């Protein structure tokens, strides 16, 4: 081959990588700026809000908390207790025991004085059938609780059963081991009630990482910064994603995902679109895309809202194996959702959903790891051919690394100036250290997990949810 042709080809390839990187970085910066503006406004508006009235009002809308549970025997009693102690007035709790093979149901029956009852379910969404039955408590203190034991069908199927069985107007879909703060419901319901022209179809909240935090009797007593790097890095990642990313998408009304750990939905509309999809591992993202699509097709004004206040604390994976499994699943979920809804891609009929959100997710979330790996392979080939321009490589790599660190530090600042959850001495220093280490300690594993996810999606159809061994959150010591 002609050397100049080779040079041109190389140049084009480099240019393409460069353009991609430029747009990626540009979009991060723009999103960060919009997020900051939106967060500032939110903090200002929120300094006025009085949640006291809403929580004790009998006219406030009714909410059903739906918590699917699978083999959660270790913590289920405590988790349910925490869900029952919310300060909202008009709500009830449905625990959907999704065909657990352990003694979750027995434990619950004993702890909460449950008896089997006759229950009429309007099967608006098809689900797997009831197994042991529907149970309610004989103790009036636990009047809000209903436990449903059904045959195993997966998280999406369990949530659908919850949608069928609830008699309230709003449903909060939550992971059963998520610690819900006492005022979470009133904060999450606010967007639904505040809007005037649009309909809010769903609200999402921030998920905070509970590892190393002291939790007793379902109450968050103390916030600690965890010791393991892998968990610290995830906290940093969440801060970036929530404070510098999702706030912006919320403002642009382009949020494509609400964390599966905690989301509040308009029940009627969720049932209208057919509930959760049981054929995907990314059901939390898929339902949001489908809800948005439905509203666009109906030409109705709508919004997916987002609350940046810490409302829900959950345990993050603390070893690499489980972490990779989780990110693998997230990757497959993203691919499945994007493929299922590819009709909206670049389709002006779907406005910002099709022209902004979908393309962004496609290029910078779904394809990013693939492009990164292609880049690495390309680099290795260049090395083998001795074509590497080391001065360029070193310069750009250093720049990229510094950008990543800077971005993380900006996220830390954002957190300090808003919710300031990590108050203890020395945490600031630890946060800086993990910002410096994260590209080495977490990112490679995210990349690896994403590639595995891609490969599993295309070549290994049998994989499903995987397991997350429950460790149990740290308990308060009896005598300090």
């Amino acid at each position: 081959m002609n050397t100049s042709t080779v040079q041109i080809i190389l140049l084009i390839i480099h240019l393409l990588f460069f353009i991609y990187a430029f747009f990626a970085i540009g979009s991060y910066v723009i999103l960060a700026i919009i997020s900051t503006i939106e967060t500032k406004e939110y903090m200002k508006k929120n300094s006025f809000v009085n949640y006291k009235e809403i929580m004790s009002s009998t006219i406030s809308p009714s909410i059903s908390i739906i918590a699917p549970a699978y083999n959660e025997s270790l913590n289920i009693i405590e988790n349910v207790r925490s869900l029952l102690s919310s300060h909202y007035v008009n709500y009830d709790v449905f625990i959907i025991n999704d065909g657990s093979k352990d003694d979750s149901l027995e434990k619950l029956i004993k702890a909460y004085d449950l008896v089997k009852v006759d229950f009429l379910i309007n099967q608006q969404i098809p689900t797997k059938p009831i197994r042991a039955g529907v149970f309610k408590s004989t103790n009036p203190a636990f009047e809000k609780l209903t436990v449903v034991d059904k045959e195993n069908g997966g998280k999406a199927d369990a949530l659908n059963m919850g949608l069928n069985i609830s008699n309230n107007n709003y449903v909060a879909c939550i992971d059963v081991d998520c610690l819900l703060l006492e005022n979470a419901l009133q904060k999450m319901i606010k967007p639904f009630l505040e809007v005037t022209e649009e309909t809010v179809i769903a609200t999402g909240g921030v998920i905070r990482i509970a590892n190393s935090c002291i939790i007793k009797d379902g109450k968050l007593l103390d916030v600690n910064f965890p010791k393991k790097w892998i968990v610290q890095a995830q906290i940093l990642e969440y801060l970036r994603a929530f404070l510098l990313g999702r706030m912006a998408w919320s403002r642009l009304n382009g949020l494509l995902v609400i964390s599966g750990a905690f989301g509040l939905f308009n029940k009627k509309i969720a049932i209208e679109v057919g509930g959760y999809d049981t054929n995907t591992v990314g059901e939390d993202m898929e339902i949001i895309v489908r809800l948005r699509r439905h509203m666009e097709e109906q030409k109705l004004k709508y919004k997916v809202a987002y609350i940046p206040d810490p409302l829900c604390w959950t345990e993050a994976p603390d070893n690499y194996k489980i972490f990779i499994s989780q990110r693998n699943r997230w990757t497959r979920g993203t691919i499945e959702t994007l493929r299922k809804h590819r009709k909206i891609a670049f389709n002006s009929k779907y406005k910002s959903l099709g022209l902004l959100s979908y393309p962004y997710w496609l290029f910078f979330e779904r394809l990013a790891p693939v492009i990164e790996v292609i880049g690495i392979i390309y680099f290795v080939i260049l090395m083998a051919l001795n074509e590497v321009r080391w001065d360029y490589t070193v310069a750009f790599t250093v720049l990229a690394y510094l950008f990543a660190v800077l971005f993380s530090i900006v996220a830390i600042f954002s957190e300090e100036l808003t919710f300031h959850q990590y108050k203890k001495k020395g945490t600031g220093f630890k946060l800086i250290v993990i910002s410096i280490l994260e590209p080495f300690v977490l990112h490679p594993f995210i990349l690896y997990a994403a590639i595995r996810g891609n490969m599993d999606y295309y070549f290994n159809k049998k994989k499903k949810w995987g397991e997350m061994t429950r460790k149990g959150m740290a308990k308060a010591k009896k005598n300090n």
Partner: protein
Amino acid sequence: MESYQYLIDYFENSPTIIKVVWVASSIFIIIIILLVIYLKYLRGHLRKNEKIVTKHQKEYESYLISYLYAGNEEEEISEEQQAIIDKLKSCAVDEFKRRIIVSTLLRLRNEISGEMAEAIQKLYFQSGLISYALSQLKSKKWYIVAKGIRELTQFHVKEVHDEIVNFVNHPKKEIRKEVQLYLVTLFHFEGLKFLDVLQTHLSEWDQIQLLEVLQHFENQELPNIKPWLKSTNDSVVTFALKLAKIYNQFEAKDAIMQLLAHQQKVIRVDAINALSHLQVVEAKDILKNNFDKLSLEEQITFFKLLENMYETSDEPFLLDHVTHINFEIKLSALKTLKILNIEKFKSLNEISDEPDYVKIFNFIEHN
């Protein structure tokens, strides 16, 4: 030294783009170092602030409590009290301290009632704190105005009513909300007059807050809500319907029945709910005759109304709809029929083998 020279040479000889990249990197490093230093300072500052705030809080608490117990029978304001008033006046000049003083006063004011509460109020006036809130009303920044109105609400300052009323239709919704709360908290049902002139939409959130505030008052005498039921502002109509329900405004039943033909479906549904709550029998026939033209939601709501207000004369209507395609209507009809005429209900056992019907029938039979 040599390596230093080498680096400079290297830099000078590099292509422009690499120069730019290294310069950018250096800028990033500098920014990072500055941010790290600032972060340390910031965290220390926030921590220190918390300590200062706590210290001041205790100080002002002491003043407040001493003030409350330093009164005597003879004078309106004792010497000791005057000394405290003067001290607070001088502290209030500083915004940071002023905020703590106000929040301390409020922390107590919200928890107690009676002569103590009035004394705190007097202190708010005497120490001059009120003048700061008043000046906030003139600010150009919306959140400062809103804060000012809120403070005046919390300290029950009725005197500024006329100034605040000017903000009723302010473009910023946070300000409108504070105005509404001011009017209702201080002037109770009289304060609701703003509904006559409200042009903007009153959100559900706002409505709930106002209703909750109203419920706390002893004297529950409602003004005439009929004009509000006829308002062109749909949210005012919705709010009036809520008032009708909560305060059992049976006198308004004709106006509510007129709403059954309102443009907006939500209002029609709300109206049916209100009529059900008020047990307005005349509404039944109107809705029955119109039933097939109603939207599904209205139909479901009507059946809920029948559950509440059934009579024997409703039996044929219920029978007609026992096998209605909608689950909730079937449920409602069968439930009501069972109470009304259990023999008739039992005879409906086999009339349909649609799975939902069978399920519902069996459930009602056994519960």
